[in-house]
């Protein structure tokens, strides 16, 4: 490749132009109407199902039978949403509160433990470090979800079934989180800072707390965002281990679809309502999310 570049430079010299580093804008073609058209289609595909659900969810029982592809929303969305939210079998408010509690605790815990481990793996010297880090990465490939049967037996023995603890406990740490924070601190935290703190007589933990933790903040925020969304949307394990009073939002939503299967306007109104909390988060922090996915990809 280097030879090619040299040739290219030589050629442009021969043409009488000075070889210059081109910016992305000059080099990459601008997209034509085809590019924008394609992206527009992708956007329609991303938004249409949600809009369609809103369209049906804002009508009444007969709206679905009209078989409209695209129409203005009806007048009943708030009524439908309220009758779903206030329904005692669905227990929506409890579910939203539970989801909020679980997702918040899990995010904070994952971020803290991941930063702690990431700091050790990236900046501290200890025996067996390489092997242990490989182990962490290897666990990423283990489909732990398949171990639900014994996990359920453990939770029964601890008398934790039907409590939020049953969902929180297995999620307190994350191999992905440890990997993520290790990668970040590796390049973001200079050794000089750590040494300076140590020379000033700070203990190891004090050094972590006042030097490593603050400089980990940008990556920690992104990690928290990911874990929050992941926990919020999780269904399989909560569905197995939680009950009516401890259910999270996706579990409540599945109950809803079993209870009202003949009135699609109510079911879909419920589905739309369930999207709103994360949609709000997306509007506030979507930019960060995009950045996080892209930065994670380059490192991964």
């Amino acid at each position, binding site marked *: 490749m280097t030879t090619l570049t040299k040739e290219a430079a030589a050629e442009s010299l021969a043409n009488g132009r000075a070889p210059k580093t081109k910016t992305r804008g000059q*080099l990459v073609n*601008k997209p034509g109407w085809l590019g924008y058209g394609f992206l527009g289609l992708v956007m329609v595909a*991303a938004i249409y199902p949600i809009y*369609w659900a809103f369209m049906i969810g804002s009508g009444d029982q007969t709206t679905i039978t009209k078989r409209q592809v695209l129409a203005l929303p009806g007048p009943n969305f708030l009524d439908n949403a309220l009758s779903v939210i206030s329904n005692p079998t669905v227990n929506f408010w409890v579910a939203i509160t539970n989801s909020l509690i679980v997702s918040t605790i899990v995010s904070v815990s994952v971020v803290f433990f991941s930063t702690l481990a990431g700091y050790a793996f990236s900046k501290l010297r200890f025996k067996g470090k390489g092997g242990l880090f490989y182990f962490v990465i290897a666990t990423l490939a283990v489909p732990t979800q398949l171990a639900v049967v014994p996990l359920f037996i453990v939770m029964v023995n601890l008398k934790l079934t039907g409590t939020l603890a049953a969902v929180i*406990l297995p999620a307190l740490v994350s191999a992905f989180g440890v990997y993520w924070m290790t990668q970040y601190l590796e390049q973001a935290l200079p050794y000089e800072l750590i040494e300076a703190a140590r020379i000033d007589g700070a*203990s190891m933990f004090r050094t972590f707390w006042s030097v490593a933790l603050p400089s980990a903040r940008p990556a920690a925020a992104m990690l928290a965002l990911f874990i929050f969304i992941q926990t919020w949307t999780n269904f399989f394990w909560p569905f*197995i281990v939680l009950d009516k009073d401890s259910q999270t939002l996706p579990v409540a939503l599945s109950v809803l679809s079993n209870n009202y299967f003949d009135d699609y306007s109510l079911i879909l109104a419920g589905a739309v309502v369930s999207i709103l909390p994360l*949609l709000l988060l997306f509007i506030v922090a979507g930019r960060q999310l995009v950045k996080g996915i892209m930065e994670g*990809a380059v490192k991964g």
Partner: protein
Amino acid sequence: MTTQTVADERAVRLVAFRHTISRWDVKVSPYLYISPFFILFAITGLFPLLYTGYVSMHEWSLIGGEGDFVGFDNFAFVLGQEKFWVSLRNTFSIFLFSSLPQVLIALVIAAVLDTNIRAKTFWRMGVLLPYIVTPVAIAIIFSVMFGDKYGIINTVLTNIGLPAVGWHSEVIPSHIAIATMVNFRWTGYQALIFLAAMQAIPRDYYEAAMIDGASRARRFFSITIPQLRPTIIFVVVTSTIGGLQIFDEPRLYDQYGTGGSDGQWRTLTMYIYNLGWGELNFGRASAVAWLLFIIIIIFGAINLAITQRISSAGSKVKK
């Protein structure tokens, strides 16, 4: 004098003590910091996984608990069930319909996003929007859209003169519908991963190729794809691990959650759930879990090999 020496001695001892503490601090701290991960993973990940093997060798019911040791009887039983093989077929079929189109479309989206478009952030956020929707909500919405009778998909099909499809009653159409839900949520996400990898490719490569007169398509296949090799492998392998465990979408594709009247879209993870919490037979559920575990490891390895082949074939063209 004496008091002075005592004080000195004390000071020396204190310093020495602090020194020892500090040395211990340096030695032990790293292990302390990584231990939460390892301890919790051992309890909630590794132990249950191994214990699955133990349960699978026993008669074990949800209510009665541990029964007799039965060796491989549970495995023999589930492998003799037609339900197991149908579930296996469904799992693979749904996976194929989701992974391949997803990677291809994501690559194209990424390639377009990699051009010098206006309002970059807007488009990037737009393609990512479906990611924040809970799979349960996606499953509910799409199960109505793919409704055999009033579904919007069939409405559109009949409007343009095509026959309506039995999205729930037929095997392959139900797999396509479920795969569509997966693709809806993940394609934009994967596209952003590919986009990031594309932007990391040195621009000199393209410059050189352009000077050599390579067309846009040629540049894409001879530079972009080979350079994306590690990323494509990463995406394919992770989507294999996740995709073969699919549960949410097929479970909520109708209101009964059993995978259709003939189990035409029942997946292996649904089968595990039905055995464990439907038939209350933990032994058999664990046997299926172990089998699926082995299948995922083998299939992940095969996918790794295939994607490596394909991408390196691409880089050979380049030379």
